[in-house]
């Protein structure tokens, strides 16, 4: 049995006509120390799925088990890295991390806490910016603070909800490598939610597609057997990578297409003939007037 188990989980929002079954019949088992990526289109219910795991939401049916016992709410044993960083803008980098450390390691002495906080800020290479406010940091730096804050509480599982999707491609690449490096050091269980198949293959041991919602469910999983450390440039030549990428993308596009057919709607377009400006002739032709557009 895995560290984290989801059994026949489904989640519905709304009532009556607005009832919308977002997730249905999700089954997932994550082993200790594993890096699992879940990929899917935006709007397919990825965030709902991760909120079920971190305890911000509860399933309507089925159960979410951590170490064999059902999850009763959010807790620091599941560290969460949010898509929009969720840093507190009135606190400095140090204080943002300190807030979490104070709460989880309340028994440590002041000195130990300080060392602990600085260790994790150093781990994400933010020591020079330790006293800055989030508004003075770039997007990538903010996400690093969020990573440091989450790692500092020493969670059993690291949950990442599209952590890099708001960043530019270059920053994303560096942060991917950094997260992998840290994962390698800390040996945490990680669940990564992403909309980028490449990112999933680059980072994860196992990659699972989530079909588009409503009634989203997990598709067939694929193991990523490419040897670590993985490098983006080498990866592009790797036949295994190409095969995986094509398989998953094809699957996602296929299920997306069938989904579209179900909710096919006919659009009636007004019958209009395109008209070229300046060529319209009302009554008699006015030859002398040149058409001026500007």
């Amino acid at each position, binding site marked *: 049995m895995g560290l984290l188990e989801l059994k026949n989980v489904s989640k519905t929002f709304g009532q009556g006509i607005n009832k919308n079954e977002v997730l249905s019949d999700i089954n997932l088992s994550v082993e200790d120390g594993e890096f699992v990526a879940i990929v899917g289109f935006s709007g397919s219910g990825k965030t709902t799925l991760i909120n079920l795991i971190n305890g911000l939401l509860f399933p309507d049916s089925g159960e979410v088990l951590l170490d064999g016992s059902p999850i009763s709410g959010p807790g620091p044993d599941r560290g969460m890295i949010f898509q929009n960083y969720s840093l*507190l*803008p009135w606190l400095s980098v140090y204080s943002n991390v300190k807030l*979490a450390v104070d709460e*989880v390691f309340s028994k440590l002495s002041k000195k130990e806490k300080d060392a602990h906080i600085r260790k994790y800020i150093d781990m994400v290479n933010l020591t020079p910016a330790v006293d800055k406010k*989030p508004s003075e940091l770039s997007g990538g730096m903010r996400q690093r603070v969020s990573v440091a804050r989450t790692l500092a509480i020493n969670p059993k599982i690291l949950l990442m909800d599209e952590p890099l999707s708001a960043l530019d491609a270059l920053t994303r690449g560096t942060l991917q490598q950094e997260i992998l490096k840290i994962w390698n050091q800390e040996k945490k269980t990680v669940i990564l939610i992403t909309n980028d198949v490449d990112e999933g293959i680059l980072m994860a041991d196992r990659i699972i597609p989530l079909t588009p919602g409503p009634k989203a469910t997990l598709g067939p999983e694929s193991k990523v057997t490419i040897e670590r450390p993985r490098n983006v440039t080498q990866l592009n030549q790797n036949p295994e990578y190409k095969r995986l990428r094509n398989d998953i993308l094809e699957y996602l596009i296929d299920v997306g297409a069938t989904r579209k057919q179900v909710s096919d709607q006919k659009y009636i377009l007004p019958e209009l003939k395109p008209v070229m400006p300046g060529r319209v002739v009302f009554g008699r032709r006015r030859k002398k007037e040149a058409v001026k557009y500007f």
Partner: protein
Amino acid sequence: MKNKSIKTLKFLGLGFLEPLIHMIDGEERRKNATRFVKGSLLPLVSIFLFIFLWHQGAMALYNSEAKERIEKARIEQGEQAALDMKACIESGEVSCQPNTLPSPAKVYQAYIALWQDHLSISQKKSEFKEKVSETNAQREAQGLDPITYTGRPSFLDQIGTSLKTVAAGFLLAMLIAVPIGVVIGLSDSLRTAFNWLIQIFKPVSPVVWLLLVFMVVKTVIKDPSIDKSFIISSISVGLCAMWATLVNTSMGVSSVDKDYLNVAKVLKLNIGQNIFKIVLPASLPLIFTGLRITVSVAWMVLIAIELLAQSPGLGSFVWEEFQNGGNDSNAKIIVAMFVIGIIGFVLDRIMLSVQNLMTFNKGIA
């Protein structure tokens, strides 16, 4: 140095002087000169225009009032009386001056008079203090209350009293509105439960609040040695002005970004930590916006309340001058009007600076 002084100026609300500093520094002189003219000389021009129009209007009113007086004297007492009246008005004698809107010059004279009045009263006060210092020392030794100056307060004393009343009212408003606002903001059910009360009491006029407070205070405080008028007016000011803070606080607390609350949930903060570490800091900007509105409302309402409550201060000064009907009373009332306006403006500026200090950049959280 330069950037620092610009920053300080902006913080103090004197940002319009910024181009002047650039200009002195020799930076794009022409451009900064235009900016300075636009920013500070144009308001000056409009002030002069205002004073000019005021002067013209006051003169017109003065002339029409004078004409009417002469006409009235002619009808009631004949041609000779009319001529006498005309001569009397032209000579500038106090007894027959037309009583109307005073001109700017007269207001300035009244201002000087009030200032000299203050100087003479404070001199009297210090003399009195010297005179009674020995007696007071003896009385203190015997355990008696010291003798205090009980003469007429000067205009500046009245301003001080008004400021004290507003400060007391503002503190009261803050102490009531912020905690209640936080509690109401945290709970949806409490908000629905008390919304009707806020909506109904918010628009109630200051006068009614004063009467209500009067009813209660009169019964509660029976000791005649306590200054009731101060208590009544400051409580009424507080009650009138607290609604803006209450509404803003509850709104700020209830609309804290969900992301911050999720952080609190994931870290399992308890309710106290949640309030003091997440909710309050996140809603501080809105709370201070509310407090700023509260200060300006308090100051505005204060004058009316003092006027009615007979408590000393600018309001009663205005009312007494109106009742006096002295020949420079109207001018003094207008001096008071400007003082009230300027103090209100300064209070608002102070609150704005505090508010800016408290506001973090929410957009890039």
